[in-house]
């Protein structure tokens, strides 16, 4: 019999019941909650007169709606009354049911997918869910982490289980070494460019190979974060020394004997050598260039040295129409050089790229330089209060401010523009977030997905440039 994949192991370890009809009950170790997808779930519990199954498995924080300026006023500082009610509702629900919440004024507040790992609330081998599709981020720790809908949030609150069908196994291997200036973000954009936004649908993707193993946890999180952009609800990386070093000493991490026992188990969390995958994709890390998305879907990416595609050269009529529509929305010309795309704003942040390493990379590019005068705004939004204070301790905030970037308070911010941070109609933005859908960052806004280093370089130039030219 073939060996097990990492996904098989995680599945087997959490299987409560296999039903005859093919569905299964999977036990959930951790649920992360935020203000947007939880209110209806708590309401459902109340209406059915149910209680949460296991309070200590939950951790909550407001992130999507919180303002990134003027946070001293707390919830009162949220100008939009509808947003304020949502944040207040999360607070009330957590208080009522006794769930731990990092509230808006708590230094530990931040984007759910940043604070889980930061607190050690994300540990290898866990099953983790959150009413947010980027929950795949946590798979970087050898976790089985799913984004779920609100009905499932309620289901997990009430039963500590999720009803699942087992997915297929997919392996994406990135061999060799990444070039200088090429980051986890470029790797995952290149992968999505290759397999498409539905390339991983129905599969749990494991990312492996030398280039992935050499990445830091931050880089791995960036890659798993965007598994969903390739259609896969789950992205994972096997546990190794890098994982264990990262987890050690965090507030929720085990200590003493429990730590030793945990590490022993965590060391088994990798695919067996003879495991079989349903689908395998390979990339050569050395060939990956800094990436820039030019269209309205994350698969619409190009090398920074490349050009916007020409729809006339596309044979598939549906794809051709998709390219034409994207170019029209984005206000771009066929065959235009990527480096000729002029920018209005730059956003460095989001659960994809707002961790300390991301900020260090961006700061190293802008240090001693100035943001282009043609830009309306360039902002840096750290992923959590703790990332913010760490960055300030390292002096990164000063580097950004001196270069002319705004230094904000933590939250989702312009990633989806639910708070006050958004693009104006027709504006082009170099963004380190994960989605470039129409209107994602504001009505009529035009998003280009890039790495933090590429966003920083673009902020200096006012248009896209190959960051490798600035790194010397």
């Amino acid at each position, binding site marked *: 019999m073939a060996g097990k994949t990492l996904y098989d192991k995680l599945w087997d370890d959490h299987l409560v019941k296999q039903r005859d009809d093919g569905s299964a009950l999977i036990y959930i170790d951790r649920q992360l909650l935020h203000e947007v997808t939880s209110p209806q779930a708590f309401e459902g519990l109340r209406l059915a007169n149910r209680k949460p199954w296991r309070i200590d498995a939950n951790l909550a924080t407001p992130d999507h709606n919180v303002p990134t300026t003027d946070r001293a006023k707390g919830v009162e500082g949220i100008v939009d009354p509808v947003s304020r009610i949502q944040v207040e509702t999360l607070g009330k629900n957590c208080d009522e049911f006794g769930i731990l919440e990092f509230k808006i004024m708590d230094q530990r507040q931040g984007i759910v997918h940043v604070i889980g790992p930061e607190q050690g609330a994300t540990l290898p081998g866990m099953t983790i869910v959150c009413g947010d599709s980027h929950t795949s981020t946590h798979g970087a720790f050898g976790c089985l982490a799913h984004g779920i809908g609100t009905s499932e949030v309620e*289901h997990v609150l009430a039963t500590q289980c999720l009803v699942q069908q087992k997915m297929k196994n997919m392996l994406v291997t990135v061999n060799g070494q990444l070039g200088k200036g090429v980051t986890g973000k470029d790797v995952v954009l290149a992968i999505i460019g290759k397999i498409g936004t539905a390339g991983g649908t129905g599969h749990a993707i494991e990312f492996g190979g030398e280039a992935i193993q050499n990445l830091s946890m931050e880089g791995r999180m960036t890659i798993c974060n965007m598994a969903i952009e390739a259609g896969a609800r789950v992205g994972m990386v096997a546990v190794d020394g890098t994982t264990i070093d990262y987890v050690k000493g965090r507030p929720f991490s085990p200590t003493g004997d429990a*730590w030793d026992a945990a590490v022993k188990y965590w060391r088994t969390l990798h695919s067996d050598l003879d495991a079989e995958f349903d689908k395998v994709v390979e990339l050569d890390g050395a060939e990956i260039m800094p990436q820039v998305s030019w269209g309205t879907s994350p698969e619409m990416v190009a090398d920074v040295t490349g050009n916007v595609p020409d729809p006339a050269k596309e044979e598939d009529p549906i794809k051709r129409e998709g390219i034409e529509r994207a170019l029209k929305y984005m206000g771009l010309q066929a065959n235009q050089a990527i480096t000729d795309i002029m920018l209005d704003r730059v956003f460095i942040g989001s659960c994809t790229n707002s961790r300390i390493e991301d900020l260090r990379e961006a700061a190293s590019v802008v240090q001693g330089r100035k943001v282009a005068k043609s830009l309306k705004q360039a902002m840096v939004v750290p992923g959590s209060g703790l990332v913010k204070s760490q960055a300030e301790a390292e002096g990164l905030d000063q580097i950004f401010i001196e270069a002319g970037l705004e230094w904000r308070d933590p939250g989702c911010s312009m990633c989806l523009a639910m708070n006050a941070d958004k693009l104006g109609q027709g504006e082009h933005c170099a963004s380190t977030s994960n989605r470039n859908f129409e209107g994602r960052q504001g009505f009529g806004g035009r998003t280009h997905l890039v790495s933090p280093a590429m966003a920083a370089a673009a902020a200096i130039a006012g248009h896209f440039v190959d960051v490798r030219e600035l790194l010397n």
Partner: protein
Amino acid sequence: MRAFTQHQGIVAPMDRSNVDTDMIIPKQFLKSIKRTGFGPNLFDELRYLDEGKPDQDSSQRPLNPDFVLNQPRYKGASVLLARSNFGCGSSREHAPWALDDYGFRVIIAPSFADIFYNNCFKNGLLPIVLEEKIVDKLFQEAEASEGYKLTVDLEAKTVATPSGESFGFDVDDFRRHCLLHGLDDIGVTLEDAELIKSYEDQRRQTAPWLFGAGR
């Protein structure tokens, strides 16, 4: 949950692939703490010419005449015919809530994004996967004849055209069972509460670090 057995309704063809959840219901409408009332903002950016804001009377807004749902012939449509990878993007259940609130009961496409597909079943909405060729044919027929209706039978797992042609579809047994009987998932799972408890007790022994930390 509302049960789904059979449904017959007018078909609206939305000829566009990769329709994402931001398109189905833009984020400014996710601030509601309710499950209802999202219908007027379904496909907001495609449907209206102006920028949609929460708490606004959408009946007064300028409509985009080119958008399929604004064409009089598709008024009252309850079957949405769509292209591949429908519902990609975020996990927001507001997307099926909006489709449901607008009046859709069935969505037919060659493929769906996983989370969206799953969310539909939790809300009495039936997503049906049919082969691309068949979807193409349905597009042609729906566009060619006004008032075109499809009949969907979940028990028999079939979609029938007005000419009597019938196509089978697959749906997994558990989801079908819950939908046919309008079952509350949570209630079904809690029938196994003892099993969950014993799993949990065992896990407390083998992985004690997963319990009570950080509190």
